[in-house]
């Protein structure tokens, strides 16, 4: 019974991390930047929503405004940081260092403004428990997480494959040079991608903390899981990233049956090592 509940919890959290993995994969496949500061944008989304809710803004508008805030921050990082570094032909290592710096700045600004301690959202619909047949229990926020994140994933896939901008993004991702000479304007597309991905990552960034509270440094571990899912799924495959995120988090949750939760980072990392040894290109690599 416990196993079933853990499985369900795993799918819920997994869909949240799946959206994070998909948003990260969009950025990585298009801009080639390993956007470590994405963890900061994720955390920022939750804090923005928390502030708005505390100021009396209703939940849904608060979510939308938080997403807008993340879009602004994500785009600014691209325009002011990655863009100039890219134009200068900076080494990958330097871009990574800049991204790590941006992460440190965002996290510590949050800690300075709010406090390094855990913040809880005020009690609301999120904590309402819905008993399901078979003794399963789902909270309001868990149901919202699954629904919103699966819809967001579906919309992202549809966007990438059906819309003009989505096709333009995939074109830039698959061949930046060709995109440049056919005037698809890769640099502008990079900004769009960062904006879209930052809005996307705000969804799990807000819904997750509704469940277990906000912490300024809480974005790094989810991002690590999300990037492992992206690599295991295969760079360039959005569906692979999402599926692997769900699978990894389900495994993490089932591992709770045999070991305490403090070690779940070990489970995640073991999965990564296995993939690196056996299938370093990921499960679904090759699809742009």
């Amino acid at each position, binding site marked *: 019974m416990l196993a079933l509940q853990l499985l369900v919890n795993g799918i819920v959290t997994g869909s949240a991390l799946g959206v994070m993995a998909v948003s990260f994969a969009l950025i*990585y496949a298009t801009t080639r930047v*390993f956007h*470590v500061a994405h963890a900061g944008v994720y955390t920022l989304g939750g804090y923005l929503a928390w502030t708005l809710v505390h100021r009396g803004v209703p939940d849904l508008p608060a979510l939308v405004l938080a997403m807008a805030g993340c879009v602004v921050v994500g785009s600014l990082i691209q325009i002011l*940081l990655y863009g*100039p*570094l890219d134009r200068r032909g*900076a*080494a*990958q*290592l*330097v*871009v*990574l*260092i*800049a991204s*790590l*710096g*941006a*992460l*440190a*700045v965002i*996290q*510590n*600004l949050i*800690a*300075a403004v709010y406090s*390094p301690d855990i913040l809880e959202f005020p009690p609301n619909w999120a904590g309402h428990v819905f008993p399901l047949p078979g003794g399963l229990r789902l909270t309001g926020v868990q149901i919202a997480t699954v629904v919103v994140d699966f819809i967001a994933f579906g919309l992202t896939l549809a966007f990438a494959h059906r819309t003009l901008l989505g096709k333009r993004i995939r074109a830039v991702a698959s061949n930046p040079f060709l995109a440049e000479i056919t005037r698809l304007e890769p640099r502008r597309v990079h900004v769009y991608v960062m904006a879209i991905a930052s809005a996307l990552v705000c969804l799990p960034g807000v819904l997750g903390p509704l469940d277990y509270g906000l912490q300024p*440094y809480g974005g*790094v*571990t989810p991002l*690590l899981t999300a*990037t*492992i899912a992206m*690599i295991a799924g295969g760079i360039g495959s959005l569906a692979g990233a999402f599926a692997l995120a769900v699978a990894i988090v389900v495994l993490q949750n089932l591992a709770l049956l045999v070991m*305490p939760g*403090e*070690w779940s*980072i*070990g489970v*995640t*990392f073991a999965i*990564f*090592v296995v993939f*690196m040894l056996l299938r*370093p290109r990921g499960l679904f690599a090759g699809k742009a």
Partner: protein
Amino acid sequence: MDYFYSYLILAEIYTLLGLSTNLLVGVVGIFSVSQAAVFGVGAYIVGDFLLAGTLSFLPALAVAALACILLNVLISLPSLRVAGDYFVVTSFGIQLLATATFTNWTAGTGGANGMPGVPPPDLLGLPIESTRGILAVTTVATLVACLAFWLILRAPFGRLLKAIREDESAVAAAGKGVLSAKVSAAALAGAFAGVAGGLYATYLSFIDPSSFDLDASILLLTMVVVGGARTLAGSIFGPFLLLALPQVLTFVAIPTTYAATARQLVYGALLIAFALFRPQGLLGERL
């Protein structure tokens, strides 16, 4: 005066760590946010042996150095197999895993409460308890490490490492062992971090996971980026400068609860500023 000595001791220990990080990040050219984890392993190993009384200071330090060499080679090996960006995941993963171990493995590390009462270093059975004595020990260790770093960068081996950074396939085509060169550099980096850990544990006599977490790794990276990659001067200047920074920050009226936050904020801003405007650091070569 003791206050100044203690700054010197810590700056020297961090110089060892700066050399270690510089070997990995600057010389071999891999992104690392896990050097604090290796540092921590060295510190806990020395702490454990001295507390149990099974080994005296120098043998314990040697064991710690060996363990850290092994660990650092193990950590760096994936970077030799997978593309650069994947190694970021390895590095973050190792750091978070190490923090989880330091915090939760209470039997070996004291857990979140830390490990108090590590005895001071001793030489040939004589304990060194004065700050000056410890300063002498760290100075000798740091000078030896600096000399090793300087000699290596001048030696043919150092030129080989630089050549690998410039063009790995050309070096391989010239029949040089790329893998063994990188592994050797990682091993040396591990030894420096292990010794630094042992000195740190015995000097402070108390260690806890917060000295070896992700923030500590970011500090080490900032030291190398600010000081400058691939030069001895940069590896020394970075730690001395950045460890003076908290003293400067104490003159600005920041509540103590926010001191750590303010420091990390400055480190992050420095990383961004140097990446954008001065990737070679103050006294280094281009990253």
